[in-house]
């Protein structure tokens, strides 16, 4: 599956667009972390909650549940909601 990476996380991936696989959003994020260690904890906390300024979009639709099923043809976009000064 194609995953679009926001600029604050590109120190992990080196690329704007990477590949990851998994049957749910949680599984895709786990695979992303295997390929790019450390990335997941910056966007999902230790209680498996999305961090406050992170948003996940699947095919352009915002997703709030890490258990959301995903298909290999889906596109995941991770977005940082910039805030503060």
């Amino acid at each position, binding site marked *: 599956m194609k995953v679009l990476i926001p600029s*604050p*996380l590109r120190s992990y991936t080196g690329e704007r667009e990477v590949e990851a696989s998994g049957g749910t959003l949680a599984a895709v994020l786990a695979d992303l972390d295997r390929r790019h*260690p*450390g990335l997941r*904890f*910056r*966007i*999902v*906390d*230790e*209680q*498996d*909650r999305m*961090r406050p*300024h*992170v948003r996940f979009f699947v095919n352009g639709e915002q997703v709030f549940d890490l258990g959301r099923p995903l298909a290999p043809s889906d596109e995941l976009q991770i977005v*940082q*909601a*910039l*805030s*503060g000064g």
Partner: protein
Amino acid sequence: MPPRGKAARPRPARVAVLVATRKGAWIFRGDGARRSWRADGPHFLGHVLNHLVLDPRDGRTLLAAAKTGHLGPTVFRSSDMGRSWKEAERPPAFPKAPEGEKGRVVDHTFWLTPGHPGEPGTWYAGTSPHGLFRSGDGGATWEPVSGLNDDPQYREWMGGAQDGTPNGPKLHSVIVDPRDPAHLYLGMSSGGVHESRDRGATWSKLLRGLEVVEGFDPSRVQFHDPHCVRICPTAPDRLWQQNHCGIYRIDRPSDEWVRVGRNMPARVGDIGFPMVVHPRDPDSAWVFPMDGTSVWPRTSPEGKPAAYRTRNGGRSWTRLDGGLPRSGAWWTVKRQAMAADAGEPVGLYVGTSSGELWASRDEGRRWGCVARHLPEIYAVEAAALA
């Protein structure tokens, strides 16, 4: 026949001043005389850096507590004085809570303390909200210190987000007794000062003699707010404390703090954030007072910044403001933003929330500005380079 004349003085260690800010970190490397400083940075531009600490056990390993406005907290490690950085494989994080319970989340790592000299690779971290974590591998992986974090009594004393400082409750001032790696102290804002004699497995409070804000009950641990606690390196039975309510000293085994800040000039008061101890003389310490009147501006009293020093265990204090702005300087100096080096005479370093770094190479008598226009300074450490 040996050459005549003075014996050569031992060459002092070169000092690096480590500056952590709300937008990144800088390392200022001093020349041998501490007269000129070369800036190295920014490191981690745009990241929120709460603490940058050099491991005194090897003189070249740095740990940095970092997060950004949107990304979660982490710890970076450098083994080449900041030329390259590697992220912790497992940063400080609370355990996953059982199903149905609301688990705690580390917002940021606030404080880093290298472990005992006899335990290379050991580090401690204090977080916001309150949490104590330990690494045994130089900061690569971190484990919660459950004896504190999960103790029901301590969890009550830690309170919630509304009980802490404006930027979240802080666990800070993690101190390792240089004589005994199992003997630890720490401070919680709010939540008081505590010690452990078994490496953090069990803890006891150390609050006798400390005052709380007028009208509150000092027997309630939640109301105690130590801002900064320091141990004297050459006399580890003595600790100093800058508290929300005054400056204190304690001489163990006594368990009673003495408010030596009562001896400060009344118009300045004894409120502030940092506390700095002399590396060799346990009777000498410095503070940088803040205005604690009315609504607590927490700026230099009357806009006139100054350090105050005692040389006699707090019986009297001397104003040290040579070279500092004479007026119109409404500085805030945070609890981690003042440091001393181990030189002779001792060098002092102060960082302001308005992004200025000031230094004195004569124990505070005369100050000079090292850098201006930095981001808000959170922490300053003076480190001896290997």
